[in-house]
């Protein structure tokens, strides 16, 4: 199949829309027998900070929800079943100058249609190094940061977000790419 096949101007199937995850997941857990549906974070107002300088002069940070591989925590390999023991609950950081073995077995990614065999499809650190070298961005921040995926929005906003901000300020990051797995 052609990986750059942009839709031709023919009518698409009705179900060819972005998956309605909130609805899908809500119905899923209700059917499994769990009562009150999860209340997803929802805001009417959205902040906006303009770039202060061109990307070619900016120091770019990277935030991921992937987890460092932990050999003692069970199967975290490609296609592994959901592995709650591989979750992490505190912000962590890693040196962007070297490679890291980050896994996504602690996340509900699509285990039917993807296999988690290529970390470049969720953690673009090697590519970002190339992009920095090319001059497209000024430079990569010295560290990337891991954000814990917590069901509690309060924990994310009151504990993890301030920690991420503090570390990015320490890194003097001008802008940040956040990758959701």
């Amino acid at each position, binding site marked *: 199949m052609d990986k750059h096949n942009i839709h031709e101007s023919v009518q698409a199937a009705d179900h060819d829309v972005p998956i309605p995850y*909130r609805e899908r997941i809500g119905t899923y857990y209700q059917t499994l027998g769990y009562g009150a549906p999860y209340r997803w974070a929802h805001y009417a107002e959205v902040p906006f900070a303009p770039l202060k300088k061109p990307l070619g002069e900016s120091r770019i940070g990277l935030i991921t929800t992937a987890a460092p591989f932990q050999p003692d925590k069970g199967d975290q390999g490609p296609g592994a079943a959901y592995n*709650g023991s591989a979750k992490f609950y505190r912000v962590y950081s890693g040196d962007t100058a070297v490679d890291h073995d980050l896994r996504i077995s602690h996340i509900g990614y699509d285990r039917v249609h993807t296999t988690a*065999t290529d970390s470049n499809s969720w953690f673009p650190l090697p590519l970002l190094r190339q992009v920095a070298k090319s001059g497209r*961005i000024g430079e990569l921040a010295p560290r990337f940061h891991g954000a814990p995926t917590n069901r509690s929005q309060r924990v994310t906003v009151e504990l993890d977000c301030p920690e*991420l901000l503090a570390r990015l300020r320490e890194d003097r990051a001008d802008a940040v790419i956040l990758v959701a797995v």
Partner: protein
Amino acid sequence: MCHQTVSLAARYLEEHGIPTVVMGCAKDIVEHVGVPRFLFSDFPLGSSTGRPHDPESQAFTLELALRVLESAPAPRTTVQSPLIWSASPDWKLDFSNVARLSSEEIARRRAEFDRQKEIAKAIREKPAAE
């Protein structure tokens, strides 16, 4: 949770003056939270930075995200990558779709979910080693 987490973080960073772009595959979750800049790939969850084993797709996706970061005119800017996952959109019918599961499978998943919750609880309650 993953898309919600990065969306909340993006908002927090922007409130404190740091511009962001979110790369993700769950459009409804990110837009429901509300973020300044979002590059949406209509790919299965787990492929937010491009198709696996396809460096060209990954480079294209990252470049789009950089363009969103530098050129979004206002908050809630979503750009959808023109890349498509497969010629048939039928993969979209599978994820967490109870209409496609037998009652035995639903019971099995419930048991597994309870087991995972216990594991997570045990980790959270363990005293920090650091």
